[in-house]
């Protein structure tokens, strides 16, 4: 048997495509896909998966907890990759509401646009939107990193607790309303800042952090110094007796 140059074959996608397990949602119900993903034992050799004809289906590849790759060939509906814990999902299309909701770890890349509340409540991992994200991107984020190549809509990072939201384009109104300790980096214009969200100084450690995020998200040709940082003014943290009349 001739020796195979594995790394070269991988580069050309040969071994990857031979070994990948494909589910065509035009033929197979979504539940079969998700059950197959959920029943993967730790250390399984089935590490490359492909989903064909999603055609806006909801809940594609939710709750995956193994370090596999999943390529979704087309656009998805609600909650794609929700609760993802360790897999690397790529959506070769656009995503409906709630992509990567409550992600724990791993990564999700959306080649197109994402609808509202992308990455909501996410606790870890990396969500990359290569197009635009809609309203409420990163709402209540709790540790996830989100990188959006385009713009984000209004009320993004509402009550964001921790993690990083990076926006190469513009942000809509009320960015970071009632924010806690998440860091927001925006390269373009901000429609308006929400309550208790302020522009902050970009210190060396932030530039370093941001450059790391841009590198991980595969962003090239953009410098960390082009961004502004926003975060909490921390005036809503504690009850203020001077505001007693307002309650």
């Amino acid at each position, binding site marked *: 048997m001739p020796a195979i140059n594995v790394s070269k074959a991988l580069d050309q996608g040969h071994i990857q495509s031979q070994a990948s397990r494909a589910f065509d949602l035009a033929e197979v119900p979504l539940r079969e896909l998700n059950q197959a993903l959920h029943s993967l034992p730790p250390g399984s050799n089935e590490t490359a998966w492909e989903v064909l004809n999603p*055609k*806006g*289906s909801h809940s594609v590849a939710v709750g995956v907890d193994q370090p596999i790759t999943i390529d979704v060939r087309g*656009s998805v*509906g*609600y909650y794609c990759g929700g609760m993802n814990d360790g897999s690397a999902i790529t959506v070769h299309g*656009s995503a*409906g*509401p709630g992509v990567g909701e409550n992600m724990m770890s791993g990564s999700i890349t959306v080649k197109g*646009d994402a*609808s*509202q509340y992308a990455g909501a409540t996410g606790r870890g991992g990396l969500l990359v939107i290569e197009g635009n994200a*809609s*309203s409420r991107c990163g709402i209540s984020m709790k540790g996830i990193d989100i990188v959006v190549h385009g713009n984000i*809509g*209004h009320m993004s990072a509402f009550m964001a607790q921790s993690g990083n939201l990076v926006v190469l384009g513009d942000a809509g109104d009320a960015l970071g309303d009632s924010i806690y300790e998440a860091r927001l980096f925006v390269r373009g214009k901000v429609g308006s800042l929400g309550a208790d969200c302020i522009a902050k100084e970009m210190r060396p450690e932030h530039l370093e952090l941001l450059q790391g995020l841009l590198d991980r998200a595969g962003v090239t040709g953009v410098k960390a110094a082009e961004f502004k940082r926003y975060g909490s003014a921390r005036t809503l943290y504690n009850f203020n007796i001077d505001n007693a009349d307002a309650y």
Partner: protein
Amino acid sequence: MCGIVGLFLKDKSLEPQLGSMLSQMLISLSDRGPDSAGIAIYGAPTGNEAKITIQSARPEQDFRNLDAELAKAIGAPVTVNVKSTHAVVRTTPDKIDEARETIQALHPDVRIMGAGDVVEIYKEVGLPEAVVDRFDVRSMTGTHGIGHTRMATESAVTTMGAHPFSTGADQCLVHNGSLSNHNNVRRELIREGMTFETENDTEVAAAYLSSQMAHGKNLGEALEGTLSDLDGFFTFVVGTKNGFGVVRDPIACKPAVMAETDQYVAFGSEYRALTKLPGIDSAKVWEPEPATVYFWEH
């Protein structure tokens, strides 16, 4: 929840397929609302007739001799085309108001779904597929249309509570959301002389637009007014005789996706509704912005 769809054709060669395209779009959103469904289809104008779509719980009784009864009463030719619980009454445009009044006088239990030169409206309790089959919507031709599948929140699950709502000639509206100031707006519109068939919030939105357009505003200007005068959650899709419009409230939590090609403009609550449209893979697909009016006219 609710699911809404709309399709505005630019390419005349697709007109024979309007009913089947819109039906397929609506059926794909069935799980957004199982209570009732409805569709409004705008047919090609003929110039010498107007029509009223009516509904009856006892169609055999109410529709049996309606053509002869009406023709005699208004002194003009009348045709009545019965489709299940609905019927389309056609007569000359100058006699349409008289025909409407006569129907209501002769058959007080018959409900008016809508009237105009081109629009036909079919809506009933049940899933979209059942409603589409019942009225043979797939075979209908037309220039544009809108549809709705309902998960009721604001008023009862009845035929009259189903969308689309029509409150003016060739005007109708479908809505995903709920309005909170509809009682106030309804009172103001009643004072202006508008009449209402239901307690439904969406009927108020339809009547608001009809009132604005009756005061000389165009579709775009009327839709703009909803942003300041209506309070609540809404994505509206609206049809007029030659127009098609979309607007979302500033919070925009009700989902919306649009697609445009050289052949059509399409709206769906979700992308699922658009996946079988011709050329969708190369269409411009986008989420309509909050508090932004979109409209097209033939």
